Protein backbone atom coordinates (compact mmCIF):
# COMPACT_ATOMS: atom_id res chain seq x y z
CA UNK A 1 0.00 0.00 0.00
CA UNK A 2 2.98 2.19 0.13
CA UNK A 3 2.35 4.48 -2.73
CA UNK A 4 4.80 7.25 -1.90
CA UNK A 5 7.11 7.60 -4.87
CA UNK A 6 10.42 6.40 -3.44
CA UNK A 7 12.48 6.51 -6.62
CA UNK A 8 12.22 10.19 -7.58
CA UNK A 9 12.56 11.26 -3.97
CA UNK A 10 15.76 9.27 -3.64
CA UNK A 11 17.10 10.46 -6.99
CA UNK A 12 16.41 14.07 -6.22
CA UNK A 13 17.90 13.71 -2.76
CA UNK A 14 21.12 12.39 -4.26
CA UNK A 15 21.10 15.15 -6.87
CA UNK A 16 20.72 17.82 -4.22
CA UNK A 17 23.58 16.29 -2.23
CA UNK A 18 25.75 16.37 -5.35
CA UNK A 19 24.82 20.00 -5.93
CA UNK A 20 25.82 20.77 -2.36
CA UNK A 21 29.11 19.01 -2.94
CA UNK A 22 29.72 21.10 -6.06
CA UNK A 23 28.81 24.24 -4.17
CA UNK A 24 31.37 23.46 -1.49
CA UNK A 25 34.09 22.94 -4.12
CA UNK A 26 33.30 26.03 -6.10
CA UNK A 27 32.69 28.68 -3.50
CA UNK A 28 35.00 27.97 -0.60
CA UNK A 29 38.42 29.67 -0.79
CA UNK A 30 39.59 27.29 1.94
CA UNK A 31 39.08 24.21 -0.18
CA UNK A 32 41.79 23.15 -2.59
CA UNK A 33 38.99 21.70 -4.73
CA UNK A 34 38.94 18.55 -6.81
CA UNK A 35 42.01 16.80 -8.19
CA UNK A 36 42.47 14.37 -11.03
CA UNK A 37 44.17 11.27 -9.70
CA UNK A 38 45.51 12.31 -6.29
CA UNK A 39 48.12 9.56 -6.37
CA UNK A 40 49.88 11.51 -9.11
CA UNK A 41 49.90 14.62 -6.93
CA UNK A 42 51.66 12.99 -4.01
CA UNK A 43 54.22 10.34 -4.78
CA UNK A 44 55.35 7.80 -2.19
CA UNK A 45 58.79 9.46 -2.23
CA UNK A 46 58.66 12.03 0.55
CA UNK A 47 59.04 15.63 -0.60
CA UNK A 48 59.39 18.79 1.44
CA UNK A 49 56.27 20.87 1.98
CA UNK A 50 53.83 18.25 0.75
CA UNK A 51 50.96 17.61 3.10
CA UNK A 52 50.44 13.91 2.68
CA UNK A 53 47.69 14.11 5.25
CA UNK A 54 45.54 15.87 2.65
CA UNK A 55 44.96 12.55 1.01
CA UNK A 56 42.85 10.43 3.35
CA UNK A 57 41.36 8.22 0.65
CA UNK A 58 44.68 7.14 -0.76
CA UNK A 59 45.95 6.18 2.65
CA UNK A 60 43.43 5.71 5.44
CA UNK A 61 42.10 8.49 7.59
CA UNK A 62 44.19 7.21 10.54
CA UNK A 63 47.40 7.21 8.51
CA UNK A 64 46.56 10.61 7.12
CA UNK A 65 46.07 12.02 10.60
CA UNK A 66 49.46 10.75 11.74
CA UNK A 67 51.11 12.24 8.65
CA UNK A 68 49.31 15.52 9.16
CA UNK A 69 50.96 15.81 12.58
CA UNK A 70 54.45 15.25 11.21
CA UNK A 71 56.22 18.43 10.05
CA UNK A 72 57.85 18.07 6.65
CA UNK A 73 60.27 20.97 7.17
CA UNK A 74 62.96 19.75 9.50
CA UNK A 75 66.27 20.84 10.94
CA UNK A 76 69.34 19.01 9.66
CA UNK A 77 70.89 16.65 12.22
CA UNK A 78 73.26 18.41 14.58
CA UNK A 79 76.79 18.68 13.27
CA UNK A 80 75.75 18.38 9.63
CA UNK A 81 78.23 19.90 7.21
CA UNK A 82 76.73 20.95 3.89
CA UNK A 83 78.16 19.39 0.76
CA UNK A 84 80.43 21.81 -1.07
CA UNK A 85 80.05 21.52 -4.81
CA UNK A 86 82.95 23.90 -5.32
CA UNK A 87 86.06 22.45 -3.62
CA UNK A 88 87.57 25.91 -3.20
CA UNK A 89 84.71 26.82 -0.89
CA UNK A 90 85.01 23.93 1.54
CA UNK A 91 86.22 26.30 4.27
CA UNK A 92 82.84 28.04 4.28
CA UNK A 93 81.11 24.84 5.26
CA UNK A 94 83.22 24.14 8.33
CA UNK A 95 81.64 24.58 11.76
CA UNK A 96 81.88 28.04 13.32
CA UNK A 97 84.35 27.85 16.21
CA UNK A 98 83.19 30.75 18.40
CA UNK A 99 80.52 30.22 21.04
CA UNK A 100 77.41 32.35 21.37
CA UNK A 101 78.66 34.10 24.52
CA UNK A 102 80.18 37.44 25.44
CA UNK A 103 83.60 35.76 25.43
CA UNK A 104 82.95 34.27 22.00
CA UNK A 105 81.93 37.72 20.73
CA UNK A 106 85.12 39.34 22.00
CA UNK A 107 87.27 36.46 20.76
CA UNK A 108 85.69 36.65 17.29
CA UNK A 109 86.42 40.37 17.23
CA UNK A 110 90.09 39.72 17.87
CA UNK A 111 90.72 36.46 16.05
CA UNK A 112 88.23 36.15 13.20
CA UNK A 113 89.33 37.57 9.86
CA UNK A 114 87.47 37.58 6.57
CA UNK A 115 88.59 34.87 4.14
CA UNK A 116 87.46 37.10 1.27
CA UNK A 117 89.66 39.94 0.10
CA UNK A 118 87.76 43.15 -0.51
CA UNK A 119 87.38 43.97 -4.17
CA UNK A 120 84.84 45.96 -6.08
CA UNK A 121 83.17 42.71 -7.11
CA UNK A 122 82.79 41.35 -3.58
CA UNK A 123 81.41 44.66 -2.35
CA UNK A 124 78.88 44.62 -5.18
CA UNK A 125 77.88 41.06 -4.28
CA UNK A 126 77.64 42.10 -0.66
CA UNK A 127 75.39 45.00 -1.58
CA UNK A 128 72.92 42.66 -3.32
CA UNK A 129 72.63 40.56 -0.18
CA UNK A 130 72.60 43.62 2.10
CA UNK A 131 69.69 45.12 0.16
CA UNK A 132 67.65 41.96 0.60
CA UNK A 133 68.54 41.01 4.15
CA UNK A 134 69.70 44.12 6.06
CA UNK A 135 68.40 47.24 4.33
CA UNK A 136 64.91 47.18 5.81
CA UNK A 137 66.25 47.67 9.35
CA UNK A 138 69.76 49.14 8.96
CA UNK A 139 68.83 51.44 6.08
CA UNK A 140 70.44 51.91 2.69
CA UNK A 141 73.52 53.63 4.13
CA UNK A 142 73.54 51.68 7.38
CA UNK A 143 72.35 54.57 9.48
CA UNK A 144 69.68 52.58 11.27
CA UNK A 145 66.82 54.15 9.34
CA UNK A 146 65.29 51.27 7.39
CA UNK A 147 61.61 50.95 6.57
CA UNK A 148 60.94 48.53 9.44
CA UNK A 149 62.32 51.17 11.82
CA UNK A 150 60.57 54.11 10.17
CA UNK A 151 57.22 52.48 9.42
CA UNK A 152 57.14 49.51 11.74
CA UNK A 153 58.24 51.00 15.03
CA UNK A 154 61.19 48.64 15.47
CA UNK A 155 63.96 50.10 17.69
CA UNK A 156 66.68 51.55 15.45
CA UNK A 157 69.97 49.69 15.17
CA UNK A 158 73.16 51.67 15.67
CA UNK A 159 74.58 53.50 12.68
CA UNK A 160 77.65 52.17 10.88
CA UNK A 161 78.92 55.71 10.57
CA UNK A 162 78.78 56.53 14.29
CA UNK A 163 78.31 53.97 17.09
CA UNK A 164 79.14 50.92 15.00
CA UNK A 165 81.83 52.60 12.90
CA UNK A 166 84.76 50.80 14.48
CA UNK A 167 83.27 47.39 15.11
CA UNK A 168 85.69 44.81 13.64
CA UNK A 169 84.72 42.37 10.90
CA UNK A 170 84.95 39.35 13.18
CA UNK A 171 82.31 40.84 15.47
CA UNK A 172 80.08 41.72 12.51
CA UNK A 173 80.23 38.13 11.30
CA UNK A 174 79.62 36.85 14.83
CA UNK A 175 76.53 39.05 15.23
CA UNK A 176 75.07 38.03 11.86
CA UNK A 177 75.59 34.40 12.86
CA UNK A 178 74.16 34.50 16.40
CA UNK A 179 72.40 37.86 16.70
CA UNK A 180 72.99 40.38 19.46
CA UNK A 181 70.63 42.50 21.49
CA UNK A 182 67.49 43.04 19.42
CA UNK A 183 69.02 41.62 16.24
CA UNK A 184 68.23 37.98 15.63
CA UNK A 185 70.50 35.28 14.23
CA UNK A 186 70.59 35.27 10.44
CA UNK A 187 72.50 32.02 10.03
CA UNK A 188 69.39 30.21 8.84
CA UNK A 189 68.99 32.65 5.95
CA UNK A 190 72.59 33.34 4.94
CA UNK A 191 75.34 30.80 4.51
CA UNK A 192 78.85 31.67 5.66
CA UNK A 193 80.03 32.94 2.31
CA UNK A 194 77.03 35.25 2.05
CA UNK A 195 77.63 36.47 5.59
CA UNK A 196 81.22 37.37 4.72
CA UNK A 197 80.05 39.19 1.60
CA UNK A 198 77.62 41.20 3.72
CA UNK A 199 80.50 41.97 6.11
CA UNK A 200 82.39 43.38 3.13
CA UNK A 201 79.58 45.74 2.34
CA UNK A 202 79.14 46.75 5.99
CA UNK A 203 82.86 47.59 6.13
CA UNK A 204 82.38 49.62 2.97
CA UNK A 205 79.52 51.53 4.63
CA UNK A 206 81.53 51.99 7.84
CA UNK A 207 84.18 53.59 5.71
CA UNK A 208 81.67 56.13 4.43
CA UNK A 209 80.86 54.31 1.20
CA UNK A 210 84.46 53.81 0.10
CA UNK A 211 86.73 50.81 -0.24
CA UNK A 212 88.83 50.30 2.88
CA UNK A 213 92.44 51.44 2.73
CA UNK A 214 94.06 48.01 2.31
CA UNK A 215 91.84 47.31 -0.70
CA UNK A 216 92.36 50.82 -2.00
CA UNK A 217 96.10 50.09 -1.96
CA UNK A 218 95.54 47.49 -4.65
CA UNK A 219 93.40 49.68 -6.82
CA UNK A 220 93.48 53.35 -5.98
CA UNK A 221 90.99 54.13 -8.73
CA UNK A 222 88.23 52.39 -6.79
CA UNK A 223 88.66 54.60 -3.75
CA UNK A 224 87.93 57.69 -5.74
CA UNK A 225 84.84 56.33 -7.45
CA UNK A 226 82.20 56.05 -4.79
CA UNK A 227 79.37 53.66 -5.46
CA UNK A 228 76.55 55.71 -6.99
CA UNK A 229 73.97 53.51 -5.36
CA UNK A 230 75.29 54.41 -1.94
CA UNK A 231 75.92 58.11 -2.28
Amino acid at each position, binding site marked *: *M*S*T*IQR*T*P*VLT*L*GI*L*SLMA*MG*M*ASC*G*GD*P*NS*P*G*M*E*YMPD*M*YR*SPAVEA*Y*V*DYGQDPYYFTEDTARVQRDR*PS*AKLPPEGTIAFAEDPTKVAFHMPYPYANT*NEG*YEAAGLGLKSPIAMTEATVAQGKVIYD*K*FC*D*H*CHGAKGE*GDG*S*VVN*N*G*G*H*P*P*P*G*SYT*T*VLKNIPEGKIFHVITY*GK*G*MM*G*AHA*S*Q*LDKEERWLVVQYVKYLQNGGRMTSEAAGDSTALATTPNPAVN
Partner: protein
Amino acid sequence: MAQAQPEDKATYDQGAKLFKGNCASCHKVDKDMVGPALQGARARWEGKGDIHEWVKNSSAYIKTGNSYAKEIFDKWKGSVMTAQALSNEEIDAILYFADNQAAPVAEKPAAGAPVATAPRTTSNWPWLVVIALLLLVVGLSLSGVKRSLSNAVREAEGQEPLPDRGILHGLGQWAWKNKIFASIIGLFIVVFLTLKMWDAAWVIGVYGGEEVEHYKPEQPILFNHTLHAGKADKGNLAIDCQYCHSGAEKSRHAGIPSTNVCMNCHKAVDTGRNTGTTEIAKIYAAVGWDPDKQEYTGKQEPVRWVKVHNLPDHAYFNHSQHVAVGKLECQECHGPIDEQMDVAEQWAPLTMGWCIECHNTKEVKMAGNGYYDEVMARLEDSDMGHEELKKYLEDDKISVKELGGWECAKCHY
Protein backbone atom coordinates in the same frame (compact mmCIF):
# COMPACT_ATOMS: atom_id res chain seq x y z
CA MET B 1 57.31 61.97 35.52
CA ALA B 2 55.69 62.47 32.13
CA GLN B 3 55.50 66.15 31.47
CA ALA B 4 53.95 67.88 28.52
CA GLN B 5 56.83 70.34 28.12
CA PRO B 6 60.34 69.69 29.38
CA GLU B 7 61.87 72.71 31.05
CA ASP B 8 65.18 72.49 29.28
CA LYS B 9 64.16 71.98 25.66
CA ALA B 10 67.70 72.09 24.26
CA THR B 11 69.04 69.38 26.57
CA TYR B 12 65.90 67.32 26.01
CA ASP B 13 66.30 67.44 22.23
CA GLN B 14 70.00 66.66 22.42
CA GLY B 15 69.19 63.71 24.69
CA ALA B 16 66.45 62.48 22.36
CA LYS B 17 68.81 62.51 19.40
CA LEU B 18 71.60 60.73 21.29
CA PHE B 19 69.12 58.20 22.67
CA LYS B 20 67.91 57.31 19.18
CA GLY B 21 71.43 56.93 17.82
CA ASN B 22 73.19 55.24 20.72
CA CYS B 23 70.71 53.59 23.06
CA ALA B 24 67.44 52.80 21.29
CA SER B 25 68.63 49.55 19.74
CA CYS B 26 68.74 47.96 23.22
CA HIS B 27 66.89 50.29 25.62
CA LYS B 28 63.42 51.71 25.78
CA VAL B 29 62.58 54.71 27.92
CA ASP B 30 59.71 53.20 29.86
CA LYS B 31 60.07 49.47 29.32
CA ASP B 32 62.77 46.85 29.76
CA MET B 33 64.10 45.40 26.50
CA VAL B 34 67.59 43.99 25.94
CA GLY B 35 68.64 46.32 28.76
CA PRO B 36 66.69 48.06 31.52
CA ALA B 37 64.31 50.98 30.99
CA LEU B 38 66.22 54.23 31.13
CA GLN B 39 63.53 56.17 32.93
CA GLY B 40 64.56 56.51 36.56
CA ALA B 41 68.01 55.05 35.93
CA ARG B 42 69.69 58.07 37.48
CA ALA B 43 67.55 57.72 40.60
CA ARG B 44 68.30 54.00 40.80
CA TRP B 45 72.04 54.72 40.71
CA GLU B 46 71.81 57.49 43.33
CA GLY B 47 74.36 56.79 46.06
CA LYS B 48 75.38 53.43 44.58
CA GLY B 49 78.02 54.41 42.08
CA ASP B 50 78.94 56.56 39.10
CA ILE B 51 76.42 56.15 36.31
CA HIS B 52 78.65 58.05 33.87
CA GLU B 53 81.51 55.58 34.19
CA TRP B 54 79.02 52.73 33.98
CA VAL B 55 77.60 53.96 30.66
CA LYS B 56 80.99 54.75 29.17
CA ASN B 57 82.42 51.29 29.77
CA SER B 58 80.34 48.89 31.80
CA SER B 59 82.81 45.97 31.77
CA ALA B 60 85.60 48.17 33.12
CA TYR B 61 83.29 49.55 35.78
CA ILE B 62 82.31 46.07 36.96
CA LYS B 63 86.02 45.34 37.43
CA THR B 64 86.26 48.23 39.93
CA GLY B 65 84.15 46.07 42.23
CA ASN B 66 81.01 48.19 42.38
CA SER B 67 78.33 45.91 43.79
CA TYR B 68 75.34 47.57 42.05
CA ALA B 69 77.09 47.25 38.69
CA LYS B 70 77.58 43.54 39.33
CA GLU B 71 73.94 43.23 40.38
CA ILE B 72 72.68 44.78 37.13
CA PHE B 73 75.06 42.66 35.07
CA ASP B 74 73.74 39.49 36.72
CA LYS B 75 70.12 40.58 36.42
CA TRP B 76 70.46 41.01 32.67
CA LYS B 77 71.95 37.57 32.32
CA GLY B 78 75.42 38.80 31.59
CA SER B 79 74.71 40.71 28.42
CA VAL B 80 77.44 43.27 28.05
CA MET B 81 76.57 46.81 27.13
CA THR B 82 78.68 48.18 24.32
CA ALA B 83 81.12 50.82 25.57
CA GLN B 84 79.79 54.26 24.65
CA ALA B 85 82.04 57.13 23.58
CA LEU B 86 79.95 59.80 25.27
CA SER B 87 80.81 62.71 27.50
CA ASN B 88 79.27 63.20 30.95
CA GLU B 89 77.15 66.03 29.58
CA GLU B 90 75.83 63.85 26.80
CA ILE B 91 74.94 61.06 29.22
CA ASP B 92 73.19 63.60 31.41
CA ALA B 93 71.22 64.80 28.40
CA ILE B 94 70.09 61.26 27.58
CA LEU B 95 69.00 60.64 31.16
CA TYR B 96 67.26 64.03 31.22
CA PHE B 97 65.41 63.03 28.09
CA ALA B 98 64.47 59.65 29.57
CA ASP B 99 63.20 61.12 32.82
CA ASN B 100 61.22 63.87 31.13
CA GLN B 101 59.88 62.09 28.09
CA ALA B 102 56.36 63.23 27.36
CA ALA B 103 53.67 60.59 27.27
CA PRO B 104 53.61 59.21 23.75
CA VAL B 105 50.86 60.56 21.54
CA ALA B 106 48.48 57.86 20.40
CA GLU B 107 49.93 56.56 17.19
CA LYS B 108 47.97 57.36 14.10
CA PRO B 109 47.86 54.63 11.49
CA ALA B 110 50.39 55.44 8.81
CA ALA B 111 49.11 56.98 5.62
CA GLY B 112 48.23 54.41 3.04
CA ALA B 113 48.03 51.60 5.55
CA PRO B 114 46.65 48.48 3.91
CA VAL B 115 42.96 48.84 3.23
CA ALA B 116 40.46 46.36 4.51
CA THR B 117 39.91 43.34 2.36
CA ALA B 118 37.28 43.82 -0.30
CA PRO B 119 34.28 41.60 0.28
CA ARG B 120 34.62 38.33 -1.54
CA THR B 121 32.24 37.83 -4.40
CA THR B 122 31.14 34.25 -4.20
CA SER B 123 28.69 32.92 -6.73
CA ASN B 124 25.53 31.66 -5.06
CA TRP B 125 23.86 29.83 -7.96
CA PRO B 126 24.76 26.36 -6.61
CA TRP B 127 22.77 27.16 -3.50
CA LEU B 128 19.80 28.26 -5.55
CA VAL B 129 19.94 24.90 -7.31
CA VAL B 130 20.05 23.13 -3.98
CA ILE B 131 17.05 25.06 -2.69
CA ALA B 132 15.08 24.40 -5.88
CA LEU B 133 15.81 20.68 -5.66
CA LEU B 134 14.81 20.54 -2.02
CA LEU B 135 11.52 22.29 -2.80
CA LEU B 136 10.91 19.78 -5.58
CA VAL B 137 11.54 16.89 -3.18
CA VAL B 138 9.12 18.38 -0.66
CA GLY B 139 6.51 18.91 -3.39
CA LEU B 140 6.79 15.35 -4.66
CA SER B 141 6.58 13.92 -1.18
CA LEU B 142 3.47 15.97 -0.52
CA SER B 143 1.81 14.78 -3.74
CA GLY B 144 2.66 11.20 -2.77
CA VAL B 145 1.12 11.73 0.64
CA LYS B 146 -1.95 13.29 -0.95
CA ARG B 147 -2.44 10.33 -3.25
CA SER B 148 -2.01 7.85 -0.39
CA LEU B 149 -4.61 9.73 1.60
CA SER B 150 -7.12 9.89 -1.26
CA ASN B 151 -6.53 6.17 -1.95
CA ALA B 152 -7.21 5.47 1.73
CA VAL B 153 -10.45 7.41 1.41
CA ARG B 154 -11.40 5.50 -1.76
CA GLU B 155 -10.56 2.20 -0.06
CA ALA B 156 -12.76 3.12 2.88
CA GLU B 157 -15.55 3.92 0.44
CA GLY B 158 -15.07 0.54 -1.23
CA GLN B 159 -13.68 1.88 -4.51
CA GLU B 160 -10.67 0.65 -6.45
CA PRO B 161 -7.50 2.62 -5.59
CA LEU B 162 -6.25 4.99 -8.28
CA PRO B 163 -3.73 3.37 -10.61
CA ASP B 164 -0.20 3.99 -9.25
CA ARG B 165 1.41 6.15 -11.88
CA GLY B 166 4.46 8.09 -10.88
CA ILE B 167 5.47 11.51 -12.06
CA LEU B 168 7.89 9.91 -14.52
CA HIS B 169 5.02 8.00 -16.06
CA GLY B 170 3.03 11.21 -16.40
CA LEU B 171 6.03 12.96 -17.90
CA GLY B 172 6.51 10.10 -20.35
CA GLN B 173 2.92 10.27 -21.48
CA TRP B 174 3.19 14.01 -22.00
CA ALA B 175 6.42 13.61 -23.97
CA TRP B 176 4.84 10.92 -26.13
CA LYS B 177 2.04 13.27 -27.03
CA ASN B 178 4.40 16.20 -27.81
CA LYS B 179 7.27 14.33 -29.42
CA ILE B 180 8.86 17.19 -31.36
CA PHE B 181 8.71 19.69 -28.55
CA ALA B 182 10.03 17.17 -26.04
CA SER B 183 12.94 16.14 -28.25
CA ILE B 184 13.97 19.76 -28.80
CA ILE B 185 13.92 20.44 -25.06
CA GLY B 186 15.76 17.19 -24.41
CA LEU B 187 18.41 18.08 -26.96
CA PHE B 188 18.92 21.48 -25.40
CA ILE B 189 19.26 20.00 -21.93
CA VAL B 190 21.80 17.41 -23.10
CA VAL B 191 23.87 19.96 -25.05
CA PHE B 192 23.77 22.43 -22.17
CA LEU B 193 24.87 19.87 -19.61
CA THR B 194 27.62 18.55 -21.89
CA LEU B 195 29.04 22.03 -22.41
CA LYS B 196 28.89 22.76 -18.69
CA MET B 197 30.67 19.52 -17.91
CA TRP B 198 33.30 20.19 -20.56
CA ASP B 199 34.01 23.62 -19.08
CA ALA B 200 34.04 22.28 -15.56
CA ALA B 201 36.46 19.51 -16.50
CA TRP B 202 39.01 22.07 -17.68
CA VAL B 203 39.20 23.72 -14.29
CA ILE B 204 39.43 20.61 -12.14
CA GLY B 205 42.69 20.97 -10.24
CA VAL B 206 43.04 24.62 -11.31
CA TYR B 207 42.95 26.97 -8.34
CA GLY B 208 44.29 30.18 -9.80
CA GLY B 209 44.12 32.26 -12.95
CA GLU B 210 41.35 34.26 -14.50
CA GLU B 211 38.71 31.58 -14.86
CA VAL B 212 38.33 30.32 -11.33
CA GLU B 213 38.13 31.76 -7.89
CA HIS B 214 41.65 31.82 -6.47
CA TYR B 215 42.57 29.33 -3.81
CA LYS B 216 43.05 31.49 -0.74
CA PRO B 217 43.06 29.31 2.34
CA GLU B 218 42.70 30.71 5.80
CA GLN B 219 46.06 30.51 7.59
CA PRO B 220 46.68 29.79 11.26
CA ILE B 221 48.26 33.24 11.66
CA LEU B 222 46.80 36.26 9.84
CA PHE B 223 50.09 37.15 8.17
CA ASN B 224 49.73 40.20 5.95
CA HIS B 225 51.98 40.06 2.88
CA THR B 226 51.15 43.58 1.75
CA LEU B 227 52.06 45.12 5.09
CA HIS B 228 55.38 43.27 5.32
CA ALA B 229 56.55 43.39 1.70
CA GLY B 230 54.71 46.43 0.34
CA LYS B 231 56.45 49.64 -0.65
CA ALA B 232 57.89 51.84 2.08
CA ASP B 233 56.42 55.04 0.67
CA LYS B 234 52.94 53.59 1.24
CA GLY B 235 53.67 53.07 4.91
CA ASN B 236 54.60 49.41 4.51
CA LEU B 237 57.75 47.67 5.69
CA ALA B 238 59.34 46.91 2.31
CA ILE B 239 60.99 43.70 3.46
CA ASP B 240 62.41 41.82 0.48
CA CYS B 241 60.51 38.64 -0.39
CA GLN B 242 63.70 36.64 -0.06
CA TYR B 243 64.33 37.79 3.49
CA CYS B 244 61.71 35.29 4.57
CA HIS B 245 61.58 33.04 1.49
CA SER B 246 65.35 32.79 1.40
CA GLY B 247 65.33 29.46 -0.40
CA ALA B 248 64.01 30.98 -3.63
CA GLU B 249 67.45 31.73 -5.01
CA LYS B 250 69.22 28.59 -3.83
CA SER B 251 66.72 25.81 -3.76
CA ARG B 252 63.84 24.16 -5.48
CA HIS B 253 61.55 25.54 -2.79
CA ALA B 254 61.18 29.21 -1.86
CA GLY B 255 60.53 27.92 1.62
CA ILE B 256 58.20 28.80 4.44
CA PRO B 257 60.20 30.85 6.95
CA SER B 258 60.82 29.22 10.29
CA THR B 259 59.62 31.22 13.29
CA ASN B 260 63.15 32.37 14.17
CA VAL B 261 62.91 34.59 11.07
CA CYS B 262 59.68 36.13 12.41
CA MET B 263 61.45 36.72 15.71
CA ASN B 264 64.21 38.73 14.03
CA CYS B 265 61.75 41.64 14.12
CA HIS B 266 58.94 40.48 16.40
CA LYS B 267 61.21 40.11 19.39
CA ALA B 268 60.86 43.90 19.55
CA VAL B 269 57.55 44.45 17.75
CA ASP B 270 54.88 42.79 19.88
CA THR B 271 51.87 44.79 18.67
CA GLY B 272 50.62 44.57 15.11
CA ARG B 273 49.19 47.51 13.22
CA ASN B 274 45.92 45.79 12.30
CA THR B 275 45.54 42.89 14.70
CA GLY B 276 47.10 44.16 17.92
CA THR B 277 48.82 41.51 19.99
CA THR B 278 46.64 38.50 19.13
CA GLU B 279 48.40 37.33 15.97
CA ILE B 280 51.95 38.08 17.13
CA ALA B 281 51.19 36.19 20.35
CA LYS B 282 50.67 33.12 18.13
CA ILE B 283 54.26 33.46 16.89
CA TYR B 284 55.45 33.69 20.48
CA ALA B 285 53.50 30.55 21.37
CA ALA B 286 54.94 28.70 18.37
CA VAL B 287 58.56 29.66 18.94
CA GLY B 288 58.34 29.51 22.73
CA TRP B 289 59.08 33.12 23.65
CA ASP B 290 57.96 34.73 26.88
CA PRO B 291 57.44 38.41 26.05
CA ASP B 292 57.23 39.42 29.72
CA LYS B 293 60.48 37.81 30.79
CA GLN B 294 62.08 38.41 27.35
CA GLU B 295 63.43 34.88 27.14
CA TYR B 296 62.80 31.61 25.32
CA THR B 297 60.94 28.93 27.23
CA GLY B 298 61.94 26.03 25.01
CA LYS B 299 58.31 24.96 24.49
CA GLN B 300 57.81 24.96 20.74
CA GLU B 301 54.81 24.10 18.59
CA PRO B 302 55.18 24.29 14.81
CA VAL B 303 52.82 26.62 12.96
CA ARG B 304 50.50 24.66 10.68
CA TRP B 305 50.65 26.88 7.62
CA VAL B 306 48.42 25.78 4.79
CA LYS B 307 50.27 25.24 1.52
CA VAL B 308 48.81 27.46 -1.18
CA HIS B 309 50.56 26.37 -4.38
CA ASN B 310 50.15 22.64 -4.86
CA LEU B 311 51.96 21.48 -7.95
CA PRO B 312 51.40 17.81 -8.81
CA ASP B 313 54.33 15.59 -8.07
CA HIS B 314 54.65 14.61 -11.74
CA ALA B 315 55.61 18.17 -12.69
CA TYR B 316 59.05 19.34 -11.57
CA PHE B 317 59.46 22.99 -10.69
CA ASN B 318 62.56 24.71 -9.36
CA HIS B 319 62.50 28.20 -7.86
CA SER B 320 66.25 28.82 -8.16
CA GLN B 321 66.19 28.15 -11.91
CA HIS B 322 63.57 30.85 -12.34
CA VAL B 323 64.83 33.36 -9.75
CA ALA B 324 68.62 33.05 -9.91
CA VAL B 325 69.05 32.05 -13.55
CA GLY B 326 65.89 33.36 -15.24
CA LYS B 327 65.92 36.56 -13.14
CA LEU B 328 62.14 36.60 -12.86
CA GLU B 329 60.45 38.84 -10.33
CA CYS B 330 58.36 36.95 -7.78
CA GLN B 331 55.30 38.96 -8.84
CA GLU B 332 55.42 37.63 -12.40
CA CYS B 333 54.00 34.34 -11.17
CA HIS B 334 52.66 35.17 -7.71
CA GLY B 335 50.83 38.33 -8.70
CA PRO B 336 50.70 41.65 -6.85
CA ILE B 337 51.40 39.94 -3.55
CA ASP B 338 53.14 43.05 -2.19
CA GLU B 339 50.39 45.44 -3.23
CA GLN B 340 46.96 43.91 -2.78
CA MET B 341 47.25 40.53 -1.16
CA ASP B 342 46.85 40.58 2.59
CA VAL B 343 46.35 36.83 2.58
CA ALA B 344 48.39 34.81 0.10
CA GLU B 345 46.43 33.29 -2.75
CA GLN B 346 47.22 31.28 -5.83
CA TRP B 347 47.31 33.94 -8.52
CA ALA B 348 48.53 32.02 -11.56
CA PRO B 349 46.64 28.98 -12.83
CA LEU B 350 49.79 26.75 -12.67
CA THR B 351 48.48 24.73 -15.59
CA MET B 352 50.85 23.25 -18.14
CA GLY B 353 49.40 25.59 -20.76
CA TRP B 354 50.36 28.53 -18.59
CA CYS B 355 53.90 27.20 -18.10
CA ILE B 356 54.65 26.57 -21.75
CA GLU B 357 53.03 29.78 -22.89
CA CYS B 358 55.63 31.70 -20.88
CA HIS B 359 58.42 29.37 -22.04
CA ASN B 360 57.36 30.12 -25.60
CA THR B 361 57.16 33.90 -25.44
CA LYS B 362 59.54 34.99 -22.69
CA GLU B 363 62.89 36.31 -23.82
CA VAL B 364 65.83 34.75 -22.03
CA LYS B 365 68.12 37.34 -20.45
CA MET B 366 71.37 35.99 -21.88
CA ALA B 367 73.74 38.82 -21.00
CA GLY B 368 75.85 38.69 -17.86
CA ASN B 369 74.39 35.38 -16.78
CA GLY B 370 76.89 32.61 -16.09
CA TYR B 371 74.38 29.88 -16.84
CA TYR B 372 73.64 31.17 -20.35
CA ASP B 373 77.24 32.18 -21.06
CA GLU B 374 77.97 28.47 -21.19
CA VAL B 375 74.99 27.84 -23.50
CA MET B 376 76.14 30.62 -25.81
CA ALA B 377 79.73 29.37 -25.81
CA ARG B 378 78.55 25.94 -26.94
CA LEU B 379 76.32 27.38 -29.65
CA GLU B 380 79.13 29.51 -31.01
CA ASP B 381 81.60 26.62 -30.95
CA SER B 382 80.34 24.98 -34.13
CA ASP B 383 78.91 25.89 -37.54
CA MET B 384 75.77 23.94 -36.75
CA GLY B 385 75.40 25.91 -33.55
CA HIS B 386 75.77 29.12 -35.50
CA GLU B 387 72.96 28.09 -37.84
CA GLU B 388 70.78 27.24 -34.86
CA LEU B 389 71.51 30.58 -33.22
CA LYS B 390 70.57 32.40 -36.41
CA LYS B 391 67.26 30.53 -36.45
CA TYR B 392 66.62 31.41 -32.81
CA LEU B 393 67.31 35.07 -33.46
CA GLU B 394 64.88 35.38 -36.37
CA ASP B 395 62.45 37.14 -34.04
CA ASP B 396 65.33 39.06 -32.38
CA LYS B 397 65.11 37.11 -29.16
CA ILE B 398 65.92 33.74 -27.72
CA SER B 399 62.97 32.15 -25.97
CA VAL B 400 63.06 29.45 -23.32
CA LYS B 401 61.47 27.07 -25.81
CA GLU B 402 64.37 27.49 -28.23
CA LEU B 403 66.80 26.45 -25.50
CA GLY B 404 64.83 23.31 -24.75
CA GLY B 405 62.12 24.72 -22.51
CA TRP B 406 59.48 22.65 -24.32
CA GLU B 407 61.24 19.32 -23.91
CA CYS B 408 58.92 16.97 -22.00
CA ALA B 409 61.73 15.76 -19.79
CA LYS B 410 62.60 19.27 -18.62
CA CYS B 411 59.69 19.08 -16.22
CA HIS B 412 58.38 15.50 -16.32
CA TYR B 413 60.81 12.86 -15.14
